[in-house]
């Protein structure tokens, strides 16, 4: 058993190293596929980050009447946090509201005195999980025992924008999933066909091996070994290229999307990514070889 396994591995390596052109073509296709699988995996996290940051911009504000004390507003905040639809509640005091306005529009610093009259209301910024849940939150506020403390809720003004953001992010998620599935299926088919063509080249040898009494495993084994070697080399190549690209692109992407550090994301997911790459590269090559060779073993 051990001798046979050793012979299968040696034969696999010999065939792989003597088969230059075909081996290079197989590795090239596998690198593409592994690269694609890694990109799809990382883009899931990136798009989640972008979607979340976009959704965070979609919130409603509840403004409280001037006489309402901060303590009471915090108690209301506590109650709101317990509403299942509510994702996040943030308290913004009138001082904080002014500070944010000045920070966003520094040119207004001199007219703060004038704008203060307009911004002196404290508020709670509420965000929910789905766009259609805002109405439920508004209903909750209107029927609550603290409705008299509320000056106004800006939901009706912000409703069109909120719904647009949510429909866009939902469309982006669905498109992403659809594209990923299409790309993965294409990649699998391309890999399978490349390996099938490589094996097609060896039909005559397979027939001869059968005629001299080689068992199916003794014939199939070296092809699987070749697949595994091609897969491993492809993983090493794609991991190197991927790491370099991430390292190079990460600062540039962070410049455009503040808070999105691609390199950290890559390092955080490194082991999972490595597992995905290995399983994509090696399993795909080995499974494709097994399927492709099956019908030629019936001589």
């Amino acid at each position: 058993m051990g001798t046979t396994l050793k012979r299968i591995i040696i034969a696999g390596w010999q065939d792989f190293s003597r088969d230059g052109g075909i081996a290079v073509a197989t590795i090239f296709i596998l690198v593409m596929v592994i690269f694609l699988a890694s990109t799809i995996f990382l883009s899931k996290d990136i798009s989640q980050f972008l979607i979340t940051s976009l959704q965070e911009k979609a919130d409603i504000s509840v403004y409280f009447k001037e006489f309402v004390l901060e303590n009471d507003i915090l108690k209301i905040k506590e109650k709101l946090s317990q509403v299942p639809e509510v994702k996040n509640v943030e308290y913004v005091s009138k001082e904080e509201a002014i500070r944010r306005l000045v920070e966003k529009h520094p040119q207004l610093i001199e007219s703060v005195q004038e704008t203060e009259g307009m911004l002196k209301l404290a508020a709670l910024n509420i965000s929910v999980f789905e766009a259609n849940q805002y109405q439920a939150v508004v209903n909750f506020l209107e029927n609550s025992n603290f409705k008299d403390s509320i000056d106004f809720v800006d939901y009706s003004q912000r409703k069109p924008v909120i719904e647009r953001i949510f429909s866009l992010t939902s469309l982006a998620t669905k498109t992403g999933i659809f594209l990923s599935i299409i790309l993965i299926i294409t990649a699998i088919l391309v890999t399978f066909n490349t390996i099938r063509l490589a094996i097609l080249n060896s039909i005559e040898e397979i027939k001869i091996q059968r005629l001299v009494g080689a068992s199916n495993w003794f014939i199939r084994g070296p092809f699987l070994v070749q697949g595994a070697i091609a897969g491993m080399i492809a993983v090493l190549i794609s991991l190197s290229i991927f790491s370099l690209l991430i390292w190079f692109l990460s600062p540039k992407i962070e410049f455009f999307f503040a808070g999105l550090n691609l390199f950290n994301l890559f390092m955080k997911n490194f082991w999972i990514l490595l597992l995905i790459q290995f399983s994509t590269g090696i399993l795909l090559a080995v499974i494709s070889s097994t399927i492709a060779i099956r019908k030629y073993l019936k001589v």
Partner: protein
Amino acid sequence: MVKFQNVTKIYPARLPEPRAQASGGPASFSGLKDTAALENVSFEIKEGEFISIVGRSGAGKTTLLKLILLEEKPTKGRIFFEGEELAKIKPGKLPELRRKIGAVFQDYKLLASKTTYENVAYVLQVIGASDLEIARNVPKVLEIVGLQDRADNFPAELSAGERQRVSIARALIHRPKVILADEPTGNLDPYNTLDIIKLLLKIHEMGGTLVLATHNKEIVNSLGKRVITLEKGKIIRDEERGRFIL
């Protein structure tokens, strides 16, 4: 050792239409007829014999050897190898049968990606011989066929005669029960033909059982061994110390 009992092999002219197949109709189609490669063939190969199977091209020589190697299955009749009926051998046991047979083909059938040494050693690897046995036996056999200096060459780097000698070395390295040689000299010039026949005779003298399919009259007549003559798939003559007569 090998016994043919009323063996017939028919190659269908073409796949029958589904309707004809379902109703058990004939396998002919659009005027094309089935080809009977062998018809009602019966004979026996005894241990240590050197048999020449002769006949014109298309007489059924290759089909006969393919049936022994279980590359093909008979349409009718039974074939026995060492008392075991070939039709009853399960696909998983097929390699075991083939390991008992050495085969030499007209087109050599060498593994193009392996060297001379590796081609010969492959059969020993297949039967599970140890590395030591391989290292000891392969050079000896290469010496018998006169290829000790070509051990590291790939088939593409060898002449036709040399390739056929590799093929013979591969066929005898594991001491098979019988060696089947299908037109082994078909692609060779007279000098190489003579070398190959001398080699086959040498194997026979060492106790090997050989079946040689050929349409080379001179070779058959010079051997002076048993000759089975096929014509249109039928045995028309089976003589001890026979001659090539058609």
